[in-house]
C-alpha cells in the first residue's frame, strides 16, 4: 500500500484544508435579509456571513423612503388595511397567507429595529414618524393615502443596514467580506454548504454548514437604465437554477417611476409621498388621466406606465424621453429636512437644485419580484411547490415567498427583507435545535467551481465581457421594460441565445489571482445571462398584463388562465415551465383602479 502523504488529504478535491471553513450557519449576502437572519441565529449558534462586498456596501443601504408597518403612530391604521393594499398592489398575484404574516408581524420588526438602535425620525411625541407612500391607503382602499411608512429622513435603508451590521458585530457574527460565492453544494435535496472565491487573495474556499441562507439581493442590473447597484447581478437565483431549483415569477420586475435621467439612480417615492408632482412637457399633472383618485401616489407599475405613455406619445420634456419631478412648491425647509439626500443626489448628478428647478426623471429597472421559491418559513422549495431542500433558506429580493406578486408597494421591500430575514433566522434556529448532523461534504463539491474559474482564466476567445454585458443591458431596456410585446420578446430571446453563445468565447485581460475584478465581471455576466434567459422566456410565456408585466399584445389581466405563479427551470438546454396556484384567503381578485 502506498503511504498517504498528509499534504494530499483533502476534504474536498482541489481545495486545501485551511480553505475549508465550518460554521453552523453560512449566510450568503450582507443586506437587510441576510444580516437580519444572521443577528437572529447568532444569539444561539455560530454564524458566518459571506459576501462579495463589505457588509455596509450592500444595496439595501440605498433604499431611501421607508419601511411599512401599521404602527398607527400618526393616524388610525390596521394590519387588515395594509394587507388589502399589498394584495391589491400585487395585482392579486401575491400569496395572501404570506402577506398576512408580512403585515401582522411588521410592527414587531420595525420596533425591534428601533430597539437595536436605528435612528428613525420621530413624531412630536417621540414615537417613530410615518409618511405617505404610493398604494398605501385607509379603509381598504376607500379612504385617502395613509401615513404608514416609518422612516429615517430619506436614508432609511442606510440607517437600517448600518444598525444590522452593528448588531452583527455585537452578536459576534463572523464576516468573510469580499468572498464571491460560486455555487451551492446540494446533493439529493440536502444542502451542505457553498463554494466561494476569495476575491482579495484568490483561491477557492468551501464553507461547510448545517444551514445555508441566501440573502443575495436582486438582479435588475441586467437592464441598462437601472437604479440598483453594479453588484446586483442575480448571483443567488442563478446559483439556485444551476442546482436544479426552478425560479418563480421571473417575468415580474418593477420599474421605479423616478430614476434620475440617464443615470437611472433612485429618487425616492418619498418625494411624491411628501407632495411632489409629476409633470409633462405641457406642465400638466398627467397622473389625473391615469389614476384620478390617488394621482402621484398610485402604485409604481401604474405610475411608470403612465410616464412611459406620456413619453411615447411625445409629451416628454422637450419631446425627449424624460418627465419632470417638481418639488419646488414644498419649499426649502421641507426639502432639506425630509428629503436631504434627494437634494444632494439631484445636485451632484444632474446639477439641478430641486428647491428652484424640477428634476428630470425616467422609469428605471428597480426591484425583482421573482426569485427563488420558498415557503413562509423561508425554506427553499426544490420543485417550487412542496419538496424542500434540507438546510437551504432564502429571503429578501433574491427570494419569492411570494408577498409582492406582480408588483411591490413602496416600503414593503425593506419590510419583507427584514421580516423574512428574521423568519429565516428563526427557522434555522428551530432546525438546529433538532441537532442535525453536519451533512457529509461530497469530495467533488468544488469541481464545477474550480473548472469555471480555470476555464475563465485560461479562456483564449475573442469576445469581451464588457461588450456582451452592454449589449444584453441595452436589449433588455429596449425590449423587456415597462411595455413588452410578443414580437420583440421573440427577437430578444434569440438575441439572448446568441449572447450566451458569445459568452462561451470570451477572453479576459487579467489572469492574476489577486483582486481580479475582470474575473468577477465574467462570473457575474454568466449568472446575469442565466437570469436574463429565464426572465425573457417567462415574459414571453405569460400572455396577459398584470402588475409589472405589461404586454401591449395582451393588454388585459386574464384571471381565468393566469391567476397562477410561473415556475421556470432549464431542461435539456431550454426553459421549461410549471405553475402553482395563488393562495387566496381574505380578498378575492377585483378590478384594480386607483
Amino acid at each position, binding site marked *: 500500500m502506498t503511504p498517504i502523504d498528509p499534504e494530499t488529504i483533502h476534504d474536498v478535491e482541489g481545495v486545501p484544508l485551511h480553505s475549508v471553513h465550518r460554521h453552523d450557519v453560512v449566510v450568503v449576502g450582507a443586506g437587510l435579509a441576510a444580516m437580519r437572519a444572521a443577528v437572529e441565529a447568532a444569539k444561539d449558534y455560530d454564524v458566518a456571513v459571506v459576501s462579495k462586498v463589505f457588509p*455596509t456596501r450592500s444595496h439595501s443601504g440605498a433604499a431611501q423612503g421607508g419601511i411599512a408597518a401599521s404602527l398607527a403612530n400618526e393616524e388610525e391604521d390596521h394590519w387588515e388595511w395594509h394587507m388589502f393594499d399589498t394584495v391589491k398592489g400585487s395585482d392579486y398575484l401575491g400569496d395572501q397567507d404570506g402577506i398576512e404574516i408580512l403585515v401582522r408581524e411588521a410592527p414587531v420588526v420595525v420596533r425591534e429595529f428601533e430597539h437595536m*438602535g436605528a435612528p428613525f425620525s420621530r413624531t412630536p411625541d417621540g*414615537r417613530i414618524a410615518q409618511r405617505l407612500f404610493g398604494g398605501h391607503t385607509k379603509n381598504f382602499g376607500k379612504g385617502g393615502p395613509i401615513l404608514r411608512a416609518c422612516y429615517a429622513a430619506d436614508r432609511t435603508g*442606510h440607517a437600517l443596514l448600518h444598525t444590522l451590521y*452593528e448588531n452583527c458585530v455585537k452578536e459576534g457574527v463572523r464576516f468573510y467580506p469580499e468572498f464571491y460565492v460560486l455555487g451551492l453544494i446540494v446533493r439529493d435535496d440536502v444542502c451542505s454548504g457553498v463554494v466561494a472565491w476569495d476575491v482579495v487573495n484568490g483561491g477557492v474556499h468551501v464553507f461547510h454548514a448545517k444551514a445555508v441562507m441566501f440573502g443575495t439581493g436582486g438582479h435588475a442590473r441586467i437592464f441598462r437604465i437601472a437604479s440598483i447597484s453594479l453588484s446586483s447581478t442575480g448571483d443567488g437565483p442563478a446559483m439556485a437554477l444551476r442546482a436544479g431549483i426552478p425560479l418563480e415569477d421571473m417575468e415580474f420586475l418593477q420599474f421605479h417611476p423616478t430614476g434620475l435621467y440617464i443615470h437611472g439612480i433612485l429618487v425616492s417615492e418619498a418625494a411624491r409621498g411628501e407632495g411632489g408632482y409629476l409633470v409633462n412637457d405641457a406642465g400638466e399633472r398627467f397622473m389625473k388621466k391615469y389614476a384620478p383618485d390617488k394621482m402621484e401616489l398610485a402604485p409604481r407599475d401604474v405610475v411608470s406606465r403612465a410616464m412611459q405613455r406620456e413619453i411615447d406619445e411625445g409629451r416628454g420634456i422637450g419631446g425627449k424621453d424624460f418627465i419632470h419631478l417638481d418639488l419646488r412648491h414644498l419649499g426649502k425647509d421641507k426639502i432639506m429636512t425630509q428629503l436631504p439626500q434627494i437634494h*444632494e443626489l439631484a445636485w*451632484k448628478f444632474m446639477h439641478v437644485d430641486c428647491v428652484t428647478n424640477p428634476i428630470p426623471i425616467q422609469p428605471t429597472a428597480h426591484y425583482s419580484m421573482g426569485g427563488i421559491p420558498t415557503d413562509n418559513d423561508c425554506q427553499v422549495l426544490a420543485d417550487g411547490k412542496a419538496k424542500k431542500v434540507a438546510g437551504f433558506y432564502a429571503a429578501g429580493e433574491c427570494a419569492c415567498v411570494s408577498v409582492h406578486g406582480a408588483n411591490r408597494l413602496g416600503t414593503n421591500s425593506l419590510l419583507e427583507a427584514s421580516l423574512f430575514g428574521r423568519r429565516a433566522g428563526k427557522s434555522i434556529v428551530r432546525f438546529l435545535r433538532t441537532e442535525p448532523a453536519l451533512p457529509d461534504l461530497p469530495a467533488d463539491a468544488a469541481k464545477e467551481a474550480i473548472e469555471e474559474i480555470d476555464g475563465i482564466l485560461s479562456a483564449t476567445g475573442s469576445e469581451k465581457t464588457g461588450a456582451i454585458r452592454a449589449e444584453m443591458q441595452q436589449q433588455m431596456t429596449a425590449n423587456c421594460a415597462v411595455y413588452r410585446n410578443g414580437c420583440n420578446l421573440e427577437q430578444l430571446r434569440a438575441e439572448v441565445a446568441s449572447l450566451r453563445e458569445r459568452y462561451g468565447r470570451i477572453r479576459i485581460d487579467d489572469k492574476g489571482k489577486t*483582486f481580479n475584478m475582470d474575473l468577477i465581471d465574467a462570473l457575474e455576466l454568466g449568472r446575469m445571462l442565466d437570469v436574463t434567459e429565464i426572465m425573457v422566456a417567462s415574459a414571453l410565456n405569460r400572455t396577459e398584463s398584470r402588475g409589472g408585466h405589461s404586454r401591449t399584445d395582451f393588454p388585459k389581466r386574464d384571471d381565468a388562465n393566469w391567476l397562477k405563479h410561473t415556475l421556470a427551470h432549464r431542461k435539456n438546454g431550454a426553459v421549461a415551465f410549471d405553475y402553482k396556484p395563488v393562495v387566496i384567503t381574505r380578498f378575492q381578485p377585483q378590478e384594480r383602479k386607483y
Partner: protein
Amino acid sequence: MANHDTEKKLITFRVKRFDPDGGERKRYTQEYKIEVMKGQSVLDCLNEIRWKQDGSLTFRRSCKSGICGSCAMTINGVNRLACETQVLALGSSTITVEPLKGFAVIKDLAVDIDPMVEKLLAVKPYLITKTPPPSDAERIQSPAERARLDGLYECILCGACTSSCPSFWADERYLGPHAFLKAYRFIADSRDDAPGEHLDALDDKHGLWRCHTIFNCVEACPKSLNPTKAIEALRRELVKEKIG
C-alpha cells in the same frame, strides 16, 4: 446652437497602478484617454476604461449613487467618491486618480480597509442599553434628541476622512476620524446607557488627544459630515467622565 449636452471632451486619466504579481512593473502610472460627456462621473469613466480598454484596471464600486462608500479614491489630489465626482466639473483635461493614502494598496485603486474596520470595532459601535426595551412599543426619543444624531449617523464608512488625516499618516495605530464619529453617534444618542464603554478606547495616546484639529477630515468627507466637531464633543465627554 450646438447641443452642449452631447458635446464630448477628450480627457486623459493618469491612474496610479500597483500590480502585486507584477515583478518589475509593480508600481507605475498608466494613462488612458477617453471621450467624456457632461453628466459622466469618474466612476463611469473608470468602468468604461475597464470594459473597453483594459480589463485589468482594478477598483471597488457598487451602488454608483454615493451611498455604499466603495469607491473613495484620490482624484486630482482630493479624496472623493468616484461615482459622484463629475468629470467635466473638475475643469481639467488631465485627471490623476490614486488609491486612498495611508492604507496598504492591494491592487491598483483597491486598498486594505481591514485596519479601518478594526478601529471602528474598538469603539463598540452599537447601541448599549441597560434596561430592556418596552415590549410592545418603541423607546421614546424627542425630535430634538433625534436631531443630535444628524451629521453623525449618515457616515458611509468610505475611509476618505481617515485617509486624509496627518495624525493617521504619522501613527498607524491612531483610531481615525471615522471611529470618533461613530463613537459620538452612540454617545450622543439619548437611548444609549454606556457612554463610558464607547469612550474607553478613545482615551489613549493613539486616541482622541492625537487629533491636531487640522480639519482635513471635514474637507474630505463626501457626505459633508464633521468628524472634528465630534472629536471636540468627545473630548468634553471624556473630561466630564474623568472629573465625574
